[in-house]
């Protein structure tokens, strides 16, 4: 167990948090854009897909760092808060990978059949052809998981601020490392 989060771990934490929130807002915008703003709509969809795909290797990297370097000793909290934090963080990790994977799969199943091209440069092959029935399952799963991720991340952040105001160093540990 290390004394503090490493620089890479802290940067990854904040980078992924920023990506999740930016991509969530982007999703709301891209869906709301009218077809008359076709260029903006296509660009926001592709950017949303690209940022989402970016989360997948970052998630793998983050887990690898956690496995290699571990984490600081947990702050002393009441038992139920400690358990809730552990469960919450576990679900956050699960959603961080589930949301982009479900998003990619729903893009593949989407009947419109538009390709996924990472930042309009690198084509990412879809694992299966468009399938309306599959899309009808995957799309709401992706959407629901994304809302769950954002709500849980907000709760995670709110608890960190709450503990910070109580004088516990949780926020500083992730912000400055100590």
């Amino acid at each position, binding site marked *: 167990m290390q004394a503090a989060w490493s620089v890479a771990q802290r940067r990854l934490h904040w980078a992924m948090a920023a990506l999740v929130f930016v991509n969530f807002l982007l999703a709301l915008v891209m869906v709301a854009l009218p*077809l008359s703003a076709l*260029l903006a709509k*296509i660009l926001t969809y*592709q950017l949303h897909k690209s940022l989402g795909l970016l989360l997948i290797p970052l998630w793998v990297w983050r887990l690898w760092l956690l496995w290699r370097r571990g984490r600081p000793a947990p702050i002393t909290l009441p038992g139920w808060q400690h358990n809730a934090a552990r469960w919450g963080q576990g679900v956050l990790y699960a959603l961080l990978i589930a949301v982009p994977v479900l998003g990619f799969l729903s893009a593949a199943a989407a009947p419109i*059949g*538009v390709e996924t*091209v990472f930042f309009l440069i690198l*084509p990412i092959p879809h694992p299966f052809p468009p399938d309306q029935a599959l899309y009808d399952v995957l799309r709401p799963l992706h959407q629901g998981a994304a809302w769950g991720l954002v709500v849980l991340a907000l709760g995670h952040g709110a608890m960190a601020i709450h503990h910070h105001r109580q004088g516990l160093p949780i926020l500083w540990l992730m912000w400055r490392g100590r």
Partner: protein
Amino acid sequence: MLNYMPDEPNALPIHRRALAGAVLPLIGLAPLPARAARVFRFDQSQGRLEFIARHLMVLTSTGQFSRFDCELVLDPEKPETARVAVQVETGSITHAYPGAADLLRSPAYFDAERWPLARFSGRAAPGGRIEAFELAGPLEMRGMTQPVTMQARLSRRRRDAATGAEIVDCTARGDVSRSAFGMVADMAATGDRVQLAVSVSLVIG
């Protein structure tokens, strides 16, 4: 799937077996004697008419016309005499993306209310073979007429699992410049070249 239409006025009174005998040798599949021109008529219930647009040069999206009529006259012995006539209801556009069909029917695109029909009549170019031949002719759309060339081909024959009939798949593809028909909306997002694609299964025996 498309059947030979012996009662079609333009059709020659040839038995269906003669059709099979005529088409197959020319696609290199059976040494049967060829006879003369046949008329195939099909619509959306047997065939498929799609258009494929490119976006930002790297993405594509596909739409369809759900109402059209096509008449294909094919003389397997003389593929250079093949001809086709297609009539499409422009208002019958379907597209998987919600709202896209309405946009495409609007005056900025097909202007389906003002120009409800698009027509193409093509003739085979000399030198074609039955497995790869060109059909060139005028396409009339939005009140404008422009020359278009479709690349047509017949596939190897196969037996339909459901009906047991012998069929060959016929496809034709060709590019059109949408701006040549006055369709200039969203040029930054959608390319000028749009591919038209027709596919149908022909019953030959």
